[in-house]
Structures are given as structure tokens and as C-alpha cells.
């Protein structure tokens, strides 16, 4: 239980003035650093990166809780993968989930849209309150839930259909058609920063796009159904630095209207795009625990737990 998790009340008190002061201090150098080549930006330490990136500007300490996860346990068969995870997902904020491989980040993310239901013999305990209802409850309509909570996967997975049909896929499920369908498809592609590249080839196969384009297509496809929450599992891990930056910019823009949860192995990325960060760790004694949660700045610069500090500074195995 005492995992050092910062519940909302706590860091709202301690976090707000602190971050407020630092935004002003850290801003001037940030402009310079952002203009440097990608390689250099990535070699900077996470803490510096936080100072150099924008997201803290968007930090809303008083953001509402969109999904409130309480005491979540998750099991693959008899094997526990998540232990007593509690954290809030803040509305219109980007929440980054970090932690070493196998610590349960994907598992956690997939509980939020009940994707783990597809894996036989899994069990979920605890609750995740989304709009007054428990996501994990048996009576939840998963089809409706997944229309409200969309997902972008690690590997781009466009359907072997045309670009247009890919974006229209979710809309057609909801029986959107005609002029409205075309408008939303276009808008989604614009929002996903892909429209200019594909507007002349909407009827060609989506499989002919580059990896980065395919991933933005998948984002557009998820946006088209207008979800409230967007879950992203390492959305940029298969992409080159330029495409990655595009996706990151996109995430930052989208956070104005969407609540986003992103899993990433890239500390700099977490620092660049997220306002809140959760650090997961799996040990023999406790499988898949949330070690620390708080505003990204605090996690990266003043973490309260040694494990977190070791991990974000790269001292972790």
C-alpha cells in the first residue's frame, strides 16, 4: 500500500507553486535547446530535457480526474502482473507510464479499454471509475467503452484497405455515412498531421504508407471516432527520430482536447510530452507496482523514491 504514490491532493499542494516558479526560470534556455539537432537533444539528461521542453506549460494542477484507478490487481492465469495500482488519469493532460521492460505498463494500459479480455484466463481486481462507472465491472459494454477510450498500438496496424476506409472504419461501425463521414475522415487526417501527405491518394491501400505515416494513420483512425481518452502503447518505438518528433508534436497538440495515456521507454519523450508520469517496477516481491506517480517535473527532478531516480537517470539495469 505505502508505495509512495502521490495522490492528487498531495502534489497539488506541493507541486503547483514549485512548477509555477520553475516554468519562468527554465524557459529561456529551452528555446535554444529545442533548436539543436535531434541527436544532441536526446543526449541531454532527462532533467535538463524537462527544463527544455514545453509540457509543464500545459500542466494543469487542478485538472479533473478522467479515470480513477483504485487498487488494481491483474493476473495472467495464476501469475500476477499488476499489484495494487492506484492512480488518477487527468483530463486533457498527457500521462506517461515509464518503467523497465516487463513491469506491466502495457498490461495496465490494456486494462483501461478491456483489451486484456481477449487473452484467455486473465483476471482483473479493483476498479477504474470512468464517468461514474467501473470499467472492470462485468456489466460494462466493452464495445461502447472502446469507442470512448481509443487505442494506438506499438506497431502500426493499418487494415489492408484504402486509406479512406481505414479512417472510416470506426465511423461506419457507428453508422456514420455520406457527407458527414467524408468530413470527419478529412478532419481526422488533418488532426493527425497526415492530410497533406495523403489527400491525393485516399483510395490507395494504407499498406503503401511509410511506417511513420501508418502510425499517424492509426492515430487518425482512433481520433475519427472521437474518443474521450486515447491510450498509446509506445506509439513511436518503431519510428525514426523525425517521425517520432512529429508524433510527439501531435500528442502535445491533441492533449488540448483529449486525455492521453502514453507508455514509453524513452525518458526524453516522457519528459517532452507528458504532464504527469507514473513509474512502474516489477520485482520478485511485488509484481507490477506503481512506485511513484506525480507531475512529470517532480518525477524527473525531485523524485521521492530512489528507484525512480535511478531509473530516470539511467542508473537502472
Amino acid at each position: 500500500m505505502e508505495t509512495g504514490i502521490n495522490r492528487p491532493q498531495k502534489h497539488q499542494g506541493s507541486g503547483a507553486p514549485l512548477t509555477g516558479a520553475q516554468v519562468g526560470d527554465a524557459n529561456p534556455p529551452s528555446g535554444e535547446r529545442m533548436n539543436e539537432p535531434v541527436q544532441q537533444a536526446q543526449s541531454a539528461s532527462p532533467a535538463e530535457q524537462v527544463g527544455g521542453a514545453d509540457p509543464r506549460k500545459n500542466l494543469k494542477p487542478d485538472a479533473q480526474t478522467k479515470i480513477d484507478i483504485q487498487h488494481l490487481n491483474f493476473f495472467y492465469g495464476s501469475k500476477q502482473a499488476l499489484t495494487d495500482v492506484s492512480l488518477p488519469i487527468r483530463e486533457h493532460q498527457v500521462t506517461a507510464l515509464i518503467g523497465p521492460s516487463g513491469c506491466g505498463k502495457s498490461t495496465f494500459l490494456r486494462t483501461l479499454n478491456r483489451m486484456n479480455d481477449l487473452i484467455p484466463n486473465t483476471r482483473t481486481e479493483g476498479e477504474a471509475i470512468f464517468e461514474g462507472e467501473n470499467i472492470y465491472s462485468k456489466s460494462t459494454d466493452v464495445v461502447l467503452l472502446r469507442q470512448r477510450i481509443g487505442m494506438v498500438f506499438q506497431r502500426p496496424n493499418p487494415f489492408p484497405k484504402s486509406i479512406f476506409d481505414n479512417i472510416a472504419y470506426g465511423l461506419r461501425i457507428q453508422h456514420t455515412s455520406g457527407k458527414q463521414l467524408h468530413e470527419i475522415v478529412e478532419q481526422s487526417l488533418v488532426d493527425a498531421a497526415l492530410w497533406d501527405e495523403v489527400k491525393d491518394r485516399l483510395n490507395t491501400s494504407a499498406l503503401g504508407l511509410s511506417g511513420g505515416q501508418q502510425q499517424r494513420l492509426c492515430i487518425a483512425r482512433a481520433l475519427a471516432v472521437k474518443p474521450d481518452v486515447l491510450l498509446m502503447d509506445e506509439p513511436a518505438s518503431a519510428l525514426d527520430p523525425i517521425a517520432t518528433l512529429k508524433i510527439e508534436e501531435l500528442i502535445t497538440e491533441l492533449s488540448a482536447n483529449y486525455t492521453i495515456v502514453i507508455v514509453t521507454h524513452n525518458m526524453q519523450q516522457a519528459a517532452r510530452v507528458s504532464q504527469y508520469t507514473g513509474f512502474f517496477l516489477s520485482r520478485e516481491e511485488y509484481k507490477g507496482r506503481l512506485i511513484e506517480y506525480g507531475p512529470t517535473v517532480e518525477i524527473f527532478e525531485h523524485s521521492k523514491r530512489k528507484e525512480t531516480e535511478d531509473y530516470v537517470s539511467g542508473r537502472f539495469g
Partner: protein
Amino acid sequence: MSMQQMTQPASSQAGIERAQQQAQVVRRLHTNNTIAIGVLWAITVIVTVLFIAIIVYLLIQGAPALLSLGFYGTGATGIAAELFNTFYILILTEVILFPISLGAAIYLFEYAHQGPLVTIIHFAAETLAGVPSIVLGLFGFAAFAVYGGFGISRLAGALTLLCLNFPQALRLFEAALESVPGDLREGSLALGASKWHAIRTVVLPSALPGLVTGLILTAGKITGEAAALLFTMGLFNPANVFTLNPLIASDTLTTRLYFLKGPGAGSSSLSFSQESILAAGIAAVLILILLIINISARSIGRLIERRLTAA
């Protein structure tokens, strides 16, 4: 290992020895590789030549019949009725076989809990696949012709062919579904699709090349089957064979061939040489049909695949 050795200085005596040893090892590797390539190449060439020789031989043997007009008629030396029956029984069987085995494959692969029941079904299907077709023919006679009340008829034949081909069709269709990446299913479900919607709009279209290949491969097997039809569909045609009535007995190219050179040899109005020419012609026609089926299986499957993934 070898890389490590290469980076060591070869100045010392030991170093030189090691280098020589290594050269010997590498030479042996190359020699073995060359021998393997040679043996495999020879086997491939022999088998290929053999296959082509068989096909060419049968076609040449069949040429006199293929080139005579009477061969395509309804007379004693004609095969029009058998051609009609062969395609009739092919279509009748596939019309039953395709939906049943595809439905079973979808249920077993996409819906069923992967437990002992599914294992038992697969085991049963594999066992059925190993049953000789002549034995299945006997079963079909008892089950469909006698017990089912269809008599010796096209329907009894088609149902027997269904039993014969179901295991293979099931396996091929399951493999086609399995070849669809799980990513695509998840992508569809994550957009709020129901499972059936995901199967219908994403899984089946992606599996289409495999499904078509499965369909056509079983079509080849149906066309070439004789033993299972001997007891269930008979060896003779009624007066009016060009009808869609499924309850009449009739022969096919394969059973006609069997009768002609088997139990019926010498019993017809044909001379021995006429019989031989006719038999060779039927064999050639069968080979041609199977060739066409197999080539189209490949090219149609590939065509659909290209359609689906075209840039």
C-alpha cells in the same frame, strides 16, 4: 569464435598454426556446402523431370482422343456426360463443403475456448483425414445411400466427398485465419467493433487468399476422387444425365476411367484399342483439369493478395 581468432595477432607460431587450422575448417565448410547444394539440386531436377515426363506422357497418350470430335460427344467414345457430372459433383460438394468448413474454422479458431474440446475435434478431424477413401465410400454407402435414403445418387456421392474433404478444408481454412495478424483483430476491436464485425470486415478479407487457395485445393481433390464414389454414386448414367437432379446415379471422369480399364474392360461395344484410346483421353483431360485448378489456385490467391495489399 572465428572472428575472435581473426583479430588475434598471427605473428607468433601459435597464431600461424591457428590460422592454418581455421583455413582448413572453413574449407571443409565450403566443401560440405557445395556437396549439399549438388545433391539437393540433383534430387530437384530428377523429381521435376519425372513429374513433367508423367504429364507429357499422359498428354501424348491422350492426344488421339483429345483430337477426335467424338470424344467430346455423348456417344460410346464420348465423355460429355462424365465432364458434366464431374463439374456437377464438384460444385455440389463445394456448395456444402465451403460454408460448413469455413463456419467450423471460424468457430474453432476465433470463438471457441481453446480447451480439450477443440483438441478433441482437431484430433477427430485428423483421424478422419487418414481414413482411406474407399473405406469412407463404404461408410457413405451405408450412411447416405441406405440409411439416409438417398440411394446410390449424386447427393450420396457429394456427402461422402464432404466427409472426405472436410478435415483438409478445416485445416486449410484455420491456417488462413491464423495467418491474419492478431494486430488487425485488436485494431478493429479497439475501434469499438464487435467480434463478428471484426471477423467480417477485417479478418475474412485478409484471409481471402488463403481461403481461395483452400477452396481450390479441395476442388482438385474432389475432381480426382474415384474410390469414394464407386459405392455411393454408381458407375452408370441414366438416360437423361444432363439434369440438375441430385438423386440420380451417375459416373464421373474418374469412375468411368476405372470402369473402362477395370471391371468393364471388354464388355462394351468398343474394341480394345478404342477403349485404350478413350481411357488415355480421359486421363489426359483429368490431368488438364487438375493443372488448370492448381495453376488458378496459385494465381487467384496471389492476385487477391496483391489487390488487398496494393499500394
